[in-house]
C-alpha cells in the first residue's frame, strides 16, 4: 500500500495522513488501555464505548451537548496555545475564565438593558478585560520581579472561586435569595441558540472565529511572529532585537482575555446565570491546557482537540447511565487518552513505524 501511495501523494499530504493515522491508532490504544480498568470492575468495555459514542453523537440533542462542552475548552485551549507558544506558562486559565464569567454577570445585571447588538459586544469586551487583568497581574509580577508565572497563575486560580462564592450568596444572589446563583441575565444579553430548539449557541462561532483570528495573527503578522519567536528560542529572539519581556506580557494578557471568553460563553450562552460551580479537576481551564498541548499548540488544531475532549468527557460521563461504569472512569479515560496521544508519535518512531509519523524514509 505504502509503495503505491508514495508515488501519488505529496509530502505534505502524506505527513498529515501519517499524523492522523497515528492519532487514530493512539485513540484506539487509549480505549484499549482504559478497557483494562473497565474489565477489572466486571463491566463490558464494548457496551461502555458504545455508550460513550452514543452519549456524544447518538442524537442531535447529544451532538448539541457535546458542542456545548467543547466551546469553553476550545477557547481555553486557544488561550493556553497563545501563552505557551510565546514562552509563557499560563496555567491560570481556570481563574481567568471565572473572572470573565464574573464580569459578564455583574455587568449584565447592573446596567440597564441594551439591545443585543450593543449588549453582547459590550459584555465580550468587559469579560476580556477582566481576564486580561487577571492574567496581567502574574505577567507584571514576572516581568518586574521574576516571579515564576506558572506558580502565580496557579495560585490566583483559587481566588475567583471565593469571589463567586461571595457574590452569589451575597450582593448578587438571585431575587429569591435561595440558591447560590445570580438572577438570569436579561434575554438581550444572552447568546442566541445556533440551531433553534437546541442549546448549542453562537459561542461556538465565537470560538472558531477566535481560533482563526489567532492563527492569522500568529502566522501572518509581524507581532505574531515575534510572539512565536519568543517562544521558540528566547535568547535568539532577544538577540534579534525583539522585546521579549514585552511580548511575553502581551501574550499573557491576550491569553487571559481569550480564557475569559470561555467564561462569557458559559454565563451568557450555556447557563444564563452565574452559579456556584466548583472549579474542579476537569474544569475547562485545566482541560484547556491539555487541549492545547495535545495539538502542539496549534490554534486551528485546538478546534479539533476541543471537540475531541468534548466528545470524550460527555461520552464517558454518560457511561454511568448506559453501561454501569463508575464516574471515576471519566478521569482515567481522559488522562489515558491524553497520554497515549502525546506518546504515540514518539513511540511510533522508536518502534520503527516511521510511515505513521508522516516522516519520509530518508
Amino acid at each position: 500500500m505504502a509503495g503505491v501511495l508514495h508515488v501519488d501523494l505529496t509530502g505534505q499530504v502524506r505527513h498529515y495522513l501519517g499524523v492522523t493515522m497515528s492519532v487514530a491508532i493512539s485513540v484506539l490504544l487509549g480505549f484499549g488501555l482504559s478497557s483494562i480498568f473497565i474489565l477489572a470492575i466486571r463491566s463490558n468495555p464494548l457496551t461502555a464505548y458504545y455508550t460513550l459514542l452514543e452519549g456524544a453523537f447518538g442524537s442531535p440533542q447529544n451532538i448539541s451537548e457535546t458542542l456545548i462542552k467543547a466551546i469553553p475548552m476550545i477557547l481555553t485551549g486557544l488561550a493556553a496555545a497563545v501563552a505557551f507558544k510565546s514562552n509563557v506558562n499560563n496555567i491560570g486559565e481556570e481563574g481567568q475564565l471565572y473572572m470573565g464569567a464574573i464580569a459578564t454577570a455583574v455587568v449584565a445585571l447592573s446596567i440597564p438593558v441594551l439591545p443585543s447588538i450593543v449588549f453582547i459586544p459590550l459584555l465580550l469586551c468587559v469579560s476580556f478585560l477582566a481576564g486580561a487583568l487577571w492574567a496581567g497581574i502574574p505577567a507584571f509580577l514576572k516581568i518586574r520581579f521574576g516571579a515564576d508565572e506558572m506558580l502565580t497563575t496557579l495560585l490566583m486560580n483559587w481566588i475567583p472561586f471565593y469571589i463567586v462564592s461571595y457574590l452569589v450568596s451575597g450582593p448578587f444572589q438571585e431575587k429569591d435569595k435561595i440558591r447560590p446563583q445570580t438572577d438570569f441575565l436579561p434575554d438581550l444579553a444572552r447568546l442566541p441558540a445556533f440551531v433553534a430548539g437546541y442549546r448549542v449557541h453562537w459561542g461556538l462561532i465565537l470560538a472558531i472565529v477566535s481560533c482563526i483570528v489567532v492563527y492569522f495573527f500568529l502566522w501572518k503578522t509581524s507581532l505574531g511572529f515575534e510572539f512565536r519567536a519568543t517562544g521558540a528560542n528566547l535568547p535568539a529572539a532577544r538577540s534579534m532585537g525583539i522585546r521579549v519581556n514585552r511580548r511575553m506580557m502581551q501574550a499573557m494578557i491576550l491569553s487571559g482575555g481569550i480564557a475569559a471568553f470561555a467564561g462569557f460563553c458559559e454565563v451568557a450562552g450555556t447557563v444564563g446565570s452565574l452559579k456556584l460551580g466548583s472549579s474542579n479537576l476537569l474544569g475547562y481551564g485545566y482541560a484547556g491546557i491539555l487541549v492545547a498541548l495535545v495539538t502542539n499548540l496549534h490554534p486551528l488544531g485546538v478546534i479539533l482537540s476541543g471537540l475531541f475532549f468534548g466528545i470524550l468527557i460527555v461520552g464517558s460521563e454518560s457511561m454511568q447511565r448506559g453501561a454501569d461504569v463508575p464516574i471515576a472512569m471519566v478521569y482515567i479515560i481522559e488522562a489515558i487518552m491524553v497520554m497515549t496521544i502525546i506518546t504515540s508519535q514518539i513511540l511510533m518512531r522508536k518502534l520503527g513505524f516511521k510511515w505513521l509519523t508522516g516522516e519520509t524514509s530518508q
Partner: protein
Amino acid sequence: MVNWGDFAIVVVGAGIGIAAPLLIAALGEAFAERSGMMNLSIEGTMSLGAALAFIFGAITQNPWIGLLAGMLGGLVIGLMNVWMAQTLHLNQVVTGMSLYIFAYGLSVYLFRAITGHTSTFGLEVPRFKPIEIPALLQIPILGPTILNQNLLIYISIILVLILEVVMFKTTLGLKVRAVGENPSAADNVGINVYTVRYLCLMYGGAMAGLAGGYIALAEMGLFFEGMTAGRGWIAIAIVIFGAWSPIRILAGALIFGVIDSLALHIMVAAPQVPFQLLLTLPYVFSIAILVVAMKRAALPAALFKTYRREERQLG
C-alpha cells in the same frame, strides 16, 4: 481580653499540622525540580497516596504498610512522569497534568473498587496519634500544643535536616544540582542525567504519596474523595518559595500553615469579617511572599530556563 501570646501559640500549633503534608510533598518535589523537572502531578499523586495508604492500612491494620503502599503508588506515578518527559522528551506540563488527572481518577477508582461504596467508618485504620512525651507536655502552654505532635511530624523535621545535608553537602546533591543547572555540561562531566532525573522524580513521587498517606492516616483516619483539596499545588508553591532548599522549604511550609490556621482562627473570633476574604488569605500571602522571595533570593534564574531548554534540547 484576648491573650495574644496564647492565641499565637495555638495558631502555630494548628499550623504545624496543616504544614506537615505540604512539607513532605515539597521535600520530594524539591529534588525533582532541582534536577530540572517540574512535576505537576503532585496533587493527584497525593490523592492516590491517601487512597492506597487507607486501603492497605485497613487491610493489614498496619499504618506503616499503608504509608509504604502510598509511597509505592506515588513512585510509580513519578516514574511514569519522568519516562514521558525525559525519555520521550514530551512537554512536562502535559505529562504532569495528565498524570495528575490519572492519579486522582485512580485514587477514586481504587477506593470504590476495593471498599465498595460504603462508609469508611466501617473500616478501622490504625492511625498516627500525637506522641505524648511526658517531659515535653509539662512545658506550660507550648507542651500541649506545639510540642504535641505525631511521629511523622518529628520524622519530617529530621528528614529536612537530612535532605539539607544531602542536597548541599553530598556528591549526590551536587549531581542533582548540576543536572538542574546545565544538563549538557553535567553530561560532559560524566554524570548520567537520565539516572539522576529518574531517581529524583521517583523520590518526588514517593514523597507526594507519603504526604497523601499522612493526610489519610495521621489526622483523618479515613479516605474522602477530593480530600487533598489543592494541597499538592501549594506544595509546588512552597518549593519555589523555599528556593529548593529543604530548610527554607520548612520555613515556607510553616508560614503557609500558620497563615491558613490564622485565617481560620480569625474566622472564628471575628465572624463579621467576610469569610471568603479570609479563605483567600493563604493564597494571596503565598503570592506576595513569592514575589518577595524571588526578588532578593539568590535564585539561579537559569533554573527556570533549564526546564524550557530541557524540553527542546537533550537527546
